[in-house]
């Protein structure tokens, strides 16, 4: 009897161990999420807040009611797109930090459709095309610089972020400025806007666009030769070359695609953001940081479109719920959300986070070993009697 249950026990523990290491990617993201929330909780506690209450408020605000869900999804929509930017390029083996700049250019480009009129649906589509193209064009120079002169795309995309920021400000102040209210640009004409789909919230149909793009990217990456080549070039350029893949062409393609999605993110933030459907030139509050947050989403989403959708929902929820968290008696400033986000990304940067807790692994092994020893000893003793 003792033999059997000992065997069963160790089998159980072995199964747990296998699951823990086998589910690695998803588990890592979850673990990083937990670590981030933990760090946030610690900071809140130090400052005299009640973290448990705060988190409850947070999650209630994010996913507690339909308003919360709508807000979370709305916040997550642009993040899906900028996350895709980062992920597509990462899969091609490169770091595109320029989502911020490409997104801004796309946003301003979409404002330009206020200059002419077209029938309703077409107007929207044209706006999207213009935004995507603008984003793609903005990403092509860093790509070419990398291919031809080996310029680090990290540096070049960051530079373009800043050039884009100033360019967009200039356009917003001088070119596409609203003649009535100079602090903002022209608004997107009503016919071209993404309709609000949940009344009373700022969730618009742009979410369908974002999800659609994510699904398209998924299909492209895993079900077309184009995507196949991108992934191969990113994982093993030598073998890829040997398999007939033109790595340089593939890299440029990935950058263009990434830039386009960032441009679409910008479009979503203008054509799909009530109430003003415009850009406020000083500070650009609606646009700022969407690119960088998108990178965080990409990482937590393991650079996979499906994961990105989930991660964007989560991060969007954090942002939306943060507003709730800062109300009431246990008011925690919503900036805590960004603290948590940063902590999550930090945790994500450590590979094999699970392995980093050797205590867990060791104690499982020790425990199993000790049980085995005890059973053995008892068996020996019983046999001797």
């Amino acid at each position: 009897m003792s033999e059997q249950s000992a065997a069963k026990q160790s089998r159980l523990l072995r199964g747990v161990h296998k699951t823990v290491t086998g589910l690695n990617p998803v588990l890592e993201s979850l673990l990083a999420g937990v670590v981030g929330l933990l760090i946030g909780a610690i900071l809140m506690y130090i400052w005299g807040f009640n973290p448990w209450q705060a988190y409850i408020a947070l999650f209630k605000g994010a996913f507690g009611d339909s308003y919360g869900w709508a807000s979370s999804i709305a916040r997550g929509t642009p993040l899906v797109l900028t996350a895709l930017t980062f992920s597509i390029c990462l899969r091609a083996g490169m770091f595109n930090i320029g989502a911020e700049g490409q997104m801004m250019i796309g946003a301003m480009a979409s404002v330009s459709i206020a200059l002419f009129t077209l029938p309703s649906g077409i107007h929207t589509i044209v706006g999207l095309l213009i935004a995507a193209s603008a984003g793609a064009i903005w990403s092509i120079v860093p790509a070419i610089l990398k291919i031809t002169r080996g310029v680090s795309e990290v540096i070049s995309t960051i530079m373009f972020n800043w050039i884009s920021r100033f360019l967009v400000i200039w356009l917003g102040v001088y070119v596409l400025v609203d003649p009535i209210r100079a602090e903002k640009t022209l608004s997107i004409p009503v016919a071209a806007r993404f309709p609000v789909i949940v009344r009373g919230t700022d969730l618009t149909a742009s979410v369908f666009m974002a999800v659609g793009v994510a699904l398209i990217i998924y299909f492209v990456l895993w079900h077309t030769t184009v995507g196949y080549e991108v992934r191969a070039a990113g994982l093993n350029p030598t073998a890829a070359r040997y398999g007939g893949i033109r790595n340089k062409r593939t890299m440029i393609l990935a950058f263009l695609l990434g830039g386009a999605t960032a441009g679409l993110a910008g479009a979503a933030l203008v054509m799909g953001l009530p109430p003003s459907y415009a850009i406020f030139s000083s500070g650009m509050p609606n646009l700022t940081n969407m690119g960088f947050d998108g990178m965080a989403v990409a990482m937590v989403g393991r650079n996979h479109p499906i994961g990105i959708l989930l991660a964007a929902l989560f991060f969007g929820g954090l942002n939306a719920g943060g507003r709730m968290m800062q109300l009431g008696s246990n008011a925690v400033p919503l900036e805590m959300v960004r603290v948590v986000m940063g902590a999550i990304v930090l945790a994500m940067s450590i590979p094999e986070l699970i392995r980093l807790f050797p205590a867990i692994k060791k104690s499982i092994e020790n425990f199993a070993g000790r049980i085995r020893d005890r059973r053995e000893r008892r068996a020996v003793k019983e046999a001797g009697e």
Partner: protein
Amino acid sequence: MTSEKLNTSTVESNAGYFLRGEKMTKVYSDGTVALKEASIEIHTHEIIGLLGENGAGKTTFTKILSGLLPPTSGRVLSPKGPVRFSSPREALDFGIGMVHQHFALVGTFTATQNVALSHERPFTRVQLARAEESLKALMEESGLHVPLDVPIEKLAVGEQQRVEILKVLSRDVDLLILDEPTSVLTPLEVDELFTLLDRLRSEGKSIILITHKLKEVQSVTDRVVVLRHGQLVGDVPTEQATTEQLAQLMVGQALDQDAGAVELSDQELPVHKERKPVDRTANSVLHVESLTSRSNTGDIAIENLSFDVFGGEIFGIAGVEGNGQTELVESLTGLRVPIQGSATINGTNILGVDPRHIYKLGVAHIPEDRWELGLVLPFTLAENAILGVHQWEEFKGPLSFLRWGKINTHVRALMDRFEIRAAGPSAPAKSLSGGNQQKLIVGRELAKDPAIIVASQPTRGLDIGAAKYIRDLLVEMRDMGRAILLVSADLDEVLALADRIAIMYEGRFMTVCSPDDLNREQIGLLMGGVEREEARV
């Protein structure tokens, strides 16, 4: 298995022993026996030549002796103290220094800076002027001269090696180990190096010279130690050993008949062992003329190679690795552009063709490094199976959509045909064993219906069953009429499989003939650089 020694070495009485290795054995965690009960005594005032093929255990041997690798059993002793170090730096402090084949030099530093790097404790102001002076003195003493204020990366390889040696000498070592030092030197530089070694020996140092070149061993060493398949099979004073004896020891058939079954066992041999007589009437599939290519360092790697590979034969290239085999394969598979010569397949040129298109010309390549060149490890089996043929019409649909249905069918057929054991077409390639990975590559390449298959180290790292399978496969393909160019550092494999062999040494073919025309001793001599006439072939 006891190690057969021809003679125990005797040395002058004024030399003491510096290091003694007793029954050193090293078994790795996967069961490979890298070294088996090797015992050796290293004396001062002595140059030892360490001979052996690839995989004989030379690196393991020297690593254990220099204290950087703990033996599984056995020990290393020294009158100076325990020989067990945790870093090359400690070994240097003790007095053991190694000059590797791949230099550990900082490219942007000058020679002075590189040497200064390996010296005493940090956070002192580096006295570059003083370091330069003592380096200059050392250069005078040793006869090794290098420009001192040029960044290392701008120096010729021979000069770089001199800096490596100077680096080690400046630490005043007692035992100097050199790993294949002459592979990057001109004959003149080799002479200079040997003069230096001579002088160091008279100063009392011990030197181990790892090499596969028999002539070198003859010219500069006092003693020759031969390793084969992890065993120490010979330890003789140089003057008492002939090149023939050394060759025999190196490649097999020691004088003692039951010295061990080092030949391929029945489990490893392919099923159809019969050699095919070369059918001269068949067309030559691959025709190579005067092919010359440079290596990455700029030296000539292969020189004026001319040969044919016919349909229905396996043409095997044997030789110690590093003699140009890799560069030859790269030249024929689009990875390296030769500087001279021609190579055609059924009349069409294959030189300088981008690897993307090489398969269209009929060349299939089983690469020697399957992880770097053959597979995208994180990809699934199926994704790897279509690498290179993913643009084919049967796999690619409209809008460049991949027809996964067709692809998976194809992959399953491959898995059946080649007995690839895996969970399924969507198993990640890295979860496959080495043998199954190799079968996947072979299957994929064969699907391209090639005119010639270039197989480079095809059974490296595979277990016996998988290796046999691959060998069987190669013979089967030969029987179907394909041309096969086999490059392998495993001499037994080449001898078993090839219908004709060429022995490669320093970028040239020492001979091209049928394996039956040579006995092992002759092969060993040729592999060691002894010319045909002297080897009586």
